[in-house]
């Protein structure tokens, strides 16, 4: 694995996590991204955004090596095997889950090093840079153990058979060698506003083993036996890492400001939970049999949006907070010079009408799966449906959160139709208050608008917006959400238009037109998987399978996908790993498998 100016390729990372935060581990053994204590907290390791000063936990052989990295089968426990001229060692990485036997650290990264053959000299160093590198890291010893701390953040470093730990300038680390059959253990126990927990080796080993058992059991429960089970289970495991367990929210990605083009300015913070993802999340989780996660997410949506209802904000903080003020981190140069580095997300204040369709589709899926919606929640949903009936004629910023002027986006209108259609269906079942006549009438009006204003006869396709006659990948969601075109031919033509206008091989761009942001971007992987899904639903199963096989071949060494890819270089772009991409992957795989049967 090579680094360019200190930066590893995005595709060279795997992710570990514990349901509260995630860490990105490069193939060369460096943990280059970690936010503590939560996924949306300021960074502690951010070499991803500043190769010189961002902070990392490096661990690798001193001499040149070749590496191989893979997840322990069916788990989120990572193993990296280093082969050198002197021998072979294996490093097992995990963020451990809490333990009832002994006090567990607030957050913990465990790295176990096992000597497989020969004697390999290993060097490791921990260089945290708390608070996006803005707070000075101090070093000291407490109860004989090295501590790295700044204000209310602290990391206790414990190591067994991993050399004598030296305290350096804002860093701790060591070098060591093991005989074959021996192993070393390193634990980073992080805390925030609490005393740090100092564990013994047995406790750390037990937590690591327990964590592995949990993931194996959880991944094994995935209810999918189609041709792509391995990739689907990997996606499920990755999506589970994006679930913020304290609230049930799901972040879009665990990273911030990974660029959509090298050196470009399209760098956004995805460590928030988008309502837009609701229907895809519930669909994927319920179809895979993860009902608890689906239920928790649905409860969270209804609870988090309580303050703004009947209006929905497009995204919420994982703790349910409403504010996500966008700021730039001037001190970070950005991934391979991609500035500005943004944290927070300015799209929070946008109007995006498609979110209502996602919410009602989620509610509908929830009920169809046999889950219960109580009368109070039904009333809340009824008020939201009334809001949609009143506001669908408004302009909005659309699913892609464009920063150009609001417009009448076709997909937004179609999803308003989905919202009112599902609301009426739920009312029919007595789950929502019965205002079906009004909702049906407005749904018909929306459909008339979409069919009239959202269709371009010359292009033979639905178009991005009534005044923007171009194809947009998000229009495929109309097929996925059973929007009824005025003729069956229109969906087939839309699929053809997407392939013709937006595809580059298996990769599909979101759109080609202006979005109010300077610079280019890569192809959007979610759209590629949506295309595979739409093909299957349109009865073009062979095409769908062929496309799906091609797409899955683009996954990295551990089966993870980013937000975007450069069709020419196949470089990964954008925040990573990307929840929406993996949701689309899971749903496409299941749709194709269903269509095959």
């Amino acid at each position, binding site marked *: 694995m090579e680094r360019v100016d200190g930066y590893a390729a995005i595709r060279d990372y795997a992710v570990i996590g514990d349901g509260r935060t995630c860490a990105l581990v490069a193939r060369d053994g460096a943990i280059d991204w970690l936010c503590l204590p939560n996924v949306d907290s300021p960074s502690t390791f951010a070499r991803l955004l500043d190769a010189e000063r961002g902070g990392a936990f490096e661990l690798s052989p001193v001499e040149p090596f070749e590496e191989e990295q893979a997840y322990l089968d069916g788990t989120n426990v990572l193993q990296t095997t280093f082969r050198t001229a002197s021998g072979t060692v294996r490093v097992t990485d995990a963020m451990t889950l809490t333990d009832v036997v002994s006090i567990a650290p607030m957050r913990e990264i465990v790295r176990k090093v096992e000597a497989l053959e020969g004697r390999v000299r290993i060097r490791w160093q921990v260089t945290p840079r708390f608070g996006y590198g803005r707070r000075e890291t101090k070093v000291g010893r407490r109860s004989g153990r090295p501590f790295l701390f700044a204000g209310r953040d602290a990391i206790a470093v414990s190591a067994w058979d991993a050399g004598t730990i030296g305290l350096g300038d804002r860093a701790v680390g060591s070098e060591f060698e093991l005989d074959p059959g021996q192993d070393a253990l390193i634990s980073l126990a992080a805390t925030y506003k609490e005393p740090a927990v100092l564990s013994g080796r047995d406790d750390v080993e037990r937590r690591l083993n327990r964590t592995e058992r949990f993931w194996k059991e959880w991944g094994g429960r995935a209810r999918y036996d189609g041709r792509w089970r391995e990739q689907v289970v990997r996606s499920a495991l990755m999506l589970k890492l994006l679930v913020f367990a304290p609230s049930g929210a799901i972040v879009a990605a665990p990273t911030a400001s990974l660029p959509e083009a090298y050196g470009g300015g399209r760098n956004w913070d995805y460590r928030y939970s988008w309502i837009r993802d609701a229907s895809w999340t519930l669909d994927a989780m319920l179809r895979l049999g993860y009902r608890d996660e689906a239920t928790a997410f649905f409860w969270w949506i209804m609870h988090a949006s309580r303050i703004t209802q009947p209006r929905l904000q497009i995204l919420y903080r994982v703790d349910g*907070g409403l504010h996500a003020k966008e700021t730039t981190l001037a001190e970070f140069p950005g991934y391979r010079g991609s500035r500005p580095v943004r944290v927070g997300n300015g799209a929070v204040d946008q109007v995006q009408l498609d979110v209502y369709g996602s919410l009602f589709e989620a509610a509908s899926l929830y009920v169809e799966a046999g889950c219960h919606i109580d009368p109070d929640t039904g009333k809340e949903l009824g008020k939201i449906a009334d809001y949609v009936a009143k506001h669908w004629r408004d302009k909005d910023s659309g699913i892609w959160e464009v920063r150009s002027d609001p417009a009448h986006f076709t997909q937004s209108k179609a999803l308003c139709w989905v919202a009112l259609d599902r609301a009426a269906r739920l009312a029919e079942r007595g789950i929502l208050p019965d205002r079906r006549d009004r909702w049906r009438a407005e749904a018909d009006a929306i459909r008339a608008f979409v069919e009239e204003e959202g269709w371009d006869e010359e292009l033979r396709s639905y178009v991005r917006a009534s005044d923007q006659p171009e194809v947009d990948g998000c229009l495929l969601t109309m097929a996925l959400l059973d929007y009824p075109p005025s003729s069956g031919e229109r969906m087939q033509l839309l699929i053809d238009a997407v392939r013709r206008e937006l595809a580059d091989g298996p990769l599909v761009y979101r759109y080609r037109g202006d979005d109010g942001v300077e610079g280019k971007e890569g192809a959007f992987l979610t759209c590629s998987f949506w295309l595979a899904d739409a093909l299957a639903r349109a009865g073009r199963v062979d095409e769908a399978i062929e496309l799906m096989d091609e797409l899955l071949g683009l996954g990295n060494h551990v089966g993870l996908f980013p937000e975007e890819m450069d069709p020419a270089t196949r470089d990964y772009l954008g925040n990573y790993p990307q929840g929406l991409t993996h949701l689309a992957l899971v749903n496409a795989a299941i749709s194709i498998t269903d269509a095959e049967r």
Partner: protein
Amino acid sequence: MTLWGALAGGFVGTIVLTSSLRFAQETGLTRMDIPLMLGTVFTASRSRANVIGYAAHFVNGLLFALVYYLVFRAVGHAGWLFGLGLGAVHALFAGGALVGVLLPAVHPRMGTPWSDAEETPLLEPPGFMLENYGSRTAIGNLAAHMLYGAIVGGFTGHLSSFF
């Protein structure tokens, strides 16, 4: 100053407290829903949880009125102004420890800051001073509890002649 006065104050105060928090919720000031939070300790059904939660909150309101009464007795004085002050202390305790820390720790369906991937809670934790339920929740909580305290103090101090 009598126990019955305090209990009467607790009854009325809890009605006012619950109603004002409900009003704050309906007007978008907060997402805090005390009946739901208490009721879901016993059931995952929101409808049943609300009924149980209201009942539990009333019992809590009466129990706290007893605590207020003991304080009034110990000091030898009761009145709406003193109750107002006790209400502020009550709000700090409720937001900082009782609901903020203790309830998530024993609630079977509420997350905590320590919940990990093994858990799928249905309710998010309130956070310090209930901040997760909206930035204005702490102020609403303070105002509602001060109102409750003033009512308990006023009833205890001024209705004693009726009992």
